């Protein structure tokens, strides 16, 4: 059993004594306390503490799931270039910490609704790789039966409300879900996610006002990756301090590349929302890919900037350093884990490729509720092509 190597650049506590008793990839839940990279910046509230309660199991599962998400997005990139995925594909790599940190702080009864960069959130909510790839390729075993595609992933049993194409439209929806949660006294909250581009949509402010007026347990999460498609935030917003834009609604600015900061913030936000109504979380994050697969991502930002973020702030690297410094696994074990993940992803893709496309009759299903009996006519309206089932 090789002695573990301590990461020389870590500023986290190391435990030399237990080196000899180092556990192999452990599943025990020994508590660990992690310090977030940066303090939180608060607006109209007291920021939570920088010390986050975690455990060895959580740390390792963070690494594993984030590596899975990263691998999945890279694989989707190749599939798109191979024209197996058509239409639009918006990749989340770089932003995994937001999805993971949020999941760690909440339950499946709390609802999440987001825009079109939804593959990893879906995975975080318990979706399977197979469902992801099948949906991306438009096959019938996809999570939306192949009818939604990349932008429209949903998972009802985990309260994941998708998956929306029109920018900003999901936020009022999210506040409506929060209203329902409050009404049914579920002690659950809704996280309505949107980007820095969507932050300038009028409907957001309408939703915020309503949420604040009626004390709804809605948490608006701005995933600020600093570029709305190709427009830098300072070109689109007079005030890029999105956490302050709620004005009378409290806000918190969080380092979105630090999964533990995200976890702490979401936990804090949930407690706040259940007692006091809406709160805004601004996640300072970054996407490595362009806006979508048709955007190279380098015309509005320099390659140096992208690689700089990758070196300094990559969320998976951060977790990796933590894992190594806490002696929970060796470099080799982590590499093996990554290999396993790669295989898992490849297997899911192979299986998804074999899945058939939806039946042509699916074109007409679910336009209205089943059995509504509306007709859909054929080419010249003379012949009923299908009674919409």
């Amino acid at each position, binding site marked *: 059993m090789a002695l573990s190597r301590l990461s020389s650049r870590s500023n986290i506590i190391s435990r030399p004594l237990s080196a000899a008793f180092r556990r192999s990839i452990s599943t025990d839940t020994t508590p660990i306390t992690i310090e977030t990279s940066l303090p939180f910046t608060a607006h109209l509230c007291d920021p939570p503490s920088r010390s986050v309660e975690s455990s060895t199991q959580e740390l390792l599962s963070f690494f594993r799931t984030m590596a899975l998400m990263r691998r999945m997005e890279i694989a989707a990139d190749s599939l798109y270039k191979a024209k197996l995925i058509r239409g639009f594909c918006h990749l989340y790599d770089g932003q995994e910490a937001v999805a993971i940190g949020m999941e760690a702080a909440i339950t499946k009864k709390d609802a999440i609704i987001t825009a079109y960069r939804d593959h990893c959130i879906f995975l975080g909510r318990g979706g399977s790789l197979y469902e992801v790839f099948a949906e991306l390729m438009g096959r019938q075993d996809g999570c939306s039966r192949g009818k939604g595609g990349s932008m429209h992933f949903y998972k009802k049993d985990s309260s994941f409300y998708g998956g929306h194409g029109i920018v*900003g439209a999901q936020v009022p929806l999210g506040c409506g879900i929060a209203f329902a949660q409050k009404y049914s006294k579920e002690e659950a909250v809704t996280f309505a996610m949107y980007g820095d581009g969507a932050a300038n949509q009028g409907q957001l402010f309408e939703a915020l006002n309503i949420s604040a007026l009626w004390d709804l347990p809605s948490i608006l999460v701005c995933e600020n990756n600093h570029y709305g498609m190709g427009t830098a935030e300072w070109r*689109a917003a007079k005030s890029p301090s999105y956490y302050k834009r709620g004005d009378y609604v409290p806000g918190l600015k969080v380092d979105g590349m630090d999964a533990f900061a995200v976890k702490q913030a979401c936990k804090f936000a949930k407690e706040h929302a259940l007692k006091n109504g809406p709160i805004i979380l601004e996640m300072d994050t970054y996407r490595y890919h362009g806006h979508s697969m048709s955007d190279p991502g380098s015309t509005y930002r320099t390659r140096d900037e992208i690689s700089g973020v990758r070196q300094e702030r990559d969320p998976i690297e951060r977790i990796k350093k933590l894992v190594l410094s806490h002696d929970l696994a060796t470099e080799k074990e982590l590499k093996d884990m990554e290999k396993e993940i790669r295989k898992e992803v490849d297997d899911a893709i192979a299986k998804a490729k074999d899945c058939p496309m939806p039946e042509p009759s699916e074109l007409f299903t679910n336009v209205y509720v089943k059995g509504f009996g509306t007709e859909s006519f054929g080419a010249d309206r003379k012949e009923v092509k299908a009674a919409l089932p």
Partner: protein
Amino acid sequence: MASLLGRFCRKLVVPGSAHGSRMTSTTACGSETVKSLNLYSAINQALHIALETDPRSYVFGEDVGFGGVFRCTTGLAERFGKNRVFNTPLCEQGIVGFGIGLAAMGNRAVVEIQFADYIYPAFDQIVNEAAKFRYRSGNQFNCGGLTIRAPYGAVGHGGHYHSQSPEAFFCHVPGIKVVIPRSPREAKGLLLSSIRDPNPVVFFEPKWLYRQAVEEVPEHDYMIPLSQAEVIREGSDITLVGWGAQLTVMEQACLDAEKEGISCELIDLKTLLPWDKETVEASVKKTGRLLISHEAPITGGFGAEISATILERCFLKLEAPVSRVCGLDTPFPLVFEPFYMPTKNKASSSSSLSSPSKNTHFLIHGFSRLL
């Protein structure tokens, strides 16, 4: 604005009363230079000319500064400056409202909505503010200088939110005009007319044709009149009416029908609101049959308006019910796009193209013959 028209309009191309001519109609005057351009380049040229000829015109929208996602606005910011060509934040309602205000002060505001699918947040501004401004102020104010441009229509892989054809919603609003070009040459002339028209205009550009359609486009400043339909193919057995990218599909259907001995007359409506009823009426009175085709879903589509009007005007001359070959009554699908689209085979197999007098008829072949 009328004087502006007179001053800057140097040549007026008379639309195709070109006899049986194809889409690339002949130029009116022999000495003008033409260049082979695709749709986005033609539109780009039109915008350059519009900004050049009127110092109080502005182009703005999301991402137009670097040229726009479809390159329609390339070079404008560099040439005319950031004060006249500028980006807006992501807020369609705000953009159009802002444009209405700018136009109300006597400027020409050329607004770009990135995809027609995103125009709905601005729907209230267009319907309630732009369309009714002149009316409710008793002609004290108007926003005639407003032109809203948006790419519309299927593109092969657009899915629900990058393929919609929302023209029917806007055709229901008295006070605005709706214009849809079919090709680069038409687009340049129609866009210049729309920008200079003293009424607010919604200008839909068929995004499929941005790169696909290439045509000889005159380089000078020319305008194609609004509310004048064009017979782009003459025939005697049946009239086909359409607009935008769908005309390419319909032309294919015409060629196929010709092989079966059916002579088709194809009309490009160009302006949907107000539309040229006289041209279509004259054609239907001649042929006795009408087929309308559009990508938008059939129920409540603009074809219904054309059908009802023609029925009123040509009832006794019609030999068969008016036929509409359109998109299906479903949301615009993702993988099912080929099934949804009104393809040429659907048009060919439409029972209107059956002609008992010539003893030939197409049968409904069903989905297997869609592509």
